[in-house]
């Protein structure tokens, strides 16, 4: 059977399976819709969080990104895993004890203010929306690349699938579908990585092959010989200062992302929230520690296979011609000597490798069976769809629960709330789909926004709400606003070429820190302002101080005073 047939069959089977799981977990009441009835076992929540977290971009592009950044690619590896330590130790158990539905819920109640609630809801919607557009785009791209349907059709199929299990099953349907999606995506990633590790080193464990073989050193030498930057030497692509700040911004942002935080509301107990974060990070780390191995092996293998060969030799390799047609691999014999050679100088370089090809082409390069190619396509779709579903729920619950129920119509009945919840998630899917078909030109830039804003606004506000009993409404709101405005302004100024269309960036960097890392400065400002203002204004009311004492202790019900 051909690769296309296999891909069609495997994608079809996995989609049917997701629909079945979603249908079996449909819900009727708001607790099921928003927090899966708080009945998700810790290990299942871990798998669902991992699928929620690892996006289409993590699956398709991250190994490629690392293979181009070398050592400094660690900002993504450490940044997108280390945040879970902060989440587990500083936020998740306390938010679970608090036991509401959303992030704005906590911020609004803790700071006894609908202004704080609204600001948190707006931040949640903005962060999730910027993120989800990229996910729908990834769905469209995978469809068009592997199944030869056009991107618009791919996005529509993806939307229909997500709409089915998200609208019907809310958080419960999404959770169990994500568990299934995690299994598909990790199987696809590992089969690919193990295969290339075996081919190059005869060691089937990618993490061991990475550390105990000389492939990384050899790739480093090849890069030196070609005049490229050294692969294994630190700070070739980012300065040490930027590696520090970007990593920290991604960690703080990870811990502050609403669609990740709300997953920890779904487990039965506080102790489950703690260990569930451990399972989540274990499941994530299986992929994240394999990615650097895949990056090194696939890049080494590509260069070794292609560099210095004659055009006829390269054209006889079937995957090389296939990927050349997609535009992800470009050959051009510029000096006309009949050979293809890589070089650091763009003018002389004759082989251009797109970073997405590192993951996508590896099954064929490593000569794996055609069904593995199909599985990789299904894995990429699973990663994108599961993340999209989690983001859509976070967004729609911020509107239907926080804005509609908590602010606009506190007397709404259960049935009304469910109706609004379902309508909002459907609306969110349409908006996401629109952005998937017509992506705004700055999609790449908005990721810096999502993490920077989560780091500078939500993370400090939640942390202070738990660990600083004296923190009050005035301090928290001022801190959030200063963090948000500063970070947004800095990113716009530094990235003004893409965002405003200026010919030069309006600001080179903030004291040497680039746009991806500047959220840390916003977070620090948030902490300083919040502390200073809270100490010069009245302390929070008695019942709020009681609330803080109660969320710090696992046992015991929250007193009704917290409902104010």
């Amino acid at each position, binding site marked *: 059977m051909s690769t296309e047939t296999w891909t069609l069959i495997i994608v079809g089977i996995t989609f049917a399976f997701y629909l079945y799981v979603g249908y079996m977990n449909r819900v009727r009441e708001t607790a099921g819709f928003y927090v899966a009835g708080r009945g998700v076992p810790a290990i299942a929540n871990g798998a669902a969080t991992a699928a929620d977290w690892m996006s289409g971009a993590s699956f398709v592009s991250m190994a490629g990104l690392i293979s181009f950044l070398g050592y400094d690619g660690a900002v993504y590896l450490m940044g997108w895993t*280390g945040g879970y*330590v902060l989440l587990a130790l*500083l936020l998740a158990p306390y938010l679970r004890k608090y036991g509401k539905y959303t992030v704005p819920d906590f911020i609004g109640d803790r700071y006894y203010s609908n202004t704080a609630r609204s600001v948190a809801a707006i931040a949640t919607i903005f962060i999730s929306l910027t993120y989800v557009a990229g996910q729908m785009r990834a769905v469209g791209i995978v469809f068009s690349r592997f199944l030869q349907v056009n991107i618009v059709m791919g996005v529509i199929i993806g939307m229909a699938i997500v709409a089915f299990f998200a609208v019907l099953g809310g958080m419960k349907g999404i959770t169990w579908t994500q568990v299934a999606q995690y299994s598909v995506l990790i199987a696809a990633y590992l089969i690919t990585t193990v295969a290339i590790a075996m081919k190059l080193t005869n060691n089937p464990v990618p993490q061991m092959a990475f550390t105990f073989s000389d492939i990384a050193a050899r790739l480093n030498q090849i890069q030196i010989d070609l005049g490229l930057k050294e692969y*294994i*030497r630190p700070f070739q692509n980012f300065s*040490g200062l930027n590696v520090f700040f970007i990593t920290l911004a991604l960690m703080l942002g990870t811990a502050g992302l609403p669609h990740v935080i709300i997953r920890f509301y779904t487990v039965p107990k506080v*102790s489950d929230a703690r260990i569930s974060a*451990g399972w989540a990070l274990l499941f994530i780390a299986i992929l994240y520690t394999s990615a650097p191995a895949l990056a090194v092996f696939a890049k080494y293998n590509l260069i070794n296979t292609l560099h210095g060969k004659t055009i006829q030799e390269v054209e006889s390799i079937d995957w090389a011609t296939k990927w050349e047609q997609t535009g992800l691999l470009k050959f051009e014999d510029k000096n006309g000597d009949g050979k293809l050679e890589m070089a650091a100088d763009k003018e002389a370089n004759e082989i251009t490798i797109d970073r997405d090809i590192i993951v996508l082409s590896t099954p064929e390069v490593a000569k794996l069976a055609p069904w593995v190619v199909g599985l990789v396509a299904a894995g990429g779709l699973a990663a994108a769809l599961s993340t999209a579903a989690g983001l859509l729920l976070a967004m729609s619950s911020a509107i239907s629960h926080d804005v509609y129920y908590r602010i606009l119509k506190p007397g709404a009945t259960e049935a009304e709330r469910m109706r609004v919840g379902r309508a909002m998630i459907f609306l969110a899917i349409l908006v996401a789909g629109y952005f998937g078909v017509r992506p705004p030109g700055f999609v790449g830039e908005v990721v810096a926004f999502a993490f920077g804003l989560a780091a500078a606004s939500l993370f400090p506000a939640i942390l202070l709400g738990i660990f600083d009993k004296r923190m009050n409404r005035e301090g928290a709101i001022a801190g959030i606003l200063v963090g948000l405005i500063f970070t947004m302004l800095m990113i716009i100024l530094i990235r003004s070429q893409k965002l405003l269309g200026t010919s030069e960036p309006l600001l080179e960097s903030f004291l040497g820190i680039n746009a991806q890392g500047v959220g840390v400065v916003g977070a620090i400002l948030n902490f300083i302002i919040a502390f200073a203002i809270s100490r010069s204004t009245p302390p929070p009311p008695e019942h709020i101080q009681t609330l803080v004492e109660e969320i710090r202790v696992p046992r015991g019900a929250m007193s009704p005073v917290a409902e104010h």
Partner: protein
Amino acid sequence: MSDSRNDMARAYWRANLKAITILLAIWALVSYGAAVIFAVPLYNLRVGQIPMSFWFAQQGSMFTFVILIFVYSWWMNRIDRQFDVHEE
């Protein structure tokens, strides 16, 4: 009665903060320490066949993060029982 309960709550919170502080110190050491601040000196030492700072940056820090959360979970369950605030 109420005073001694408050003392217990304070002692529980102190024990919790101590666990968090120790674990976050390790968290910072394996990432910001080994892979950023000391990246250059550790480049000359090896783990297997690759430089030690490169290993921490792309493998070791992540392994440690996973272990830290499981240790925290185990440690907090112990503290919860010790102060009799664990869930039923």
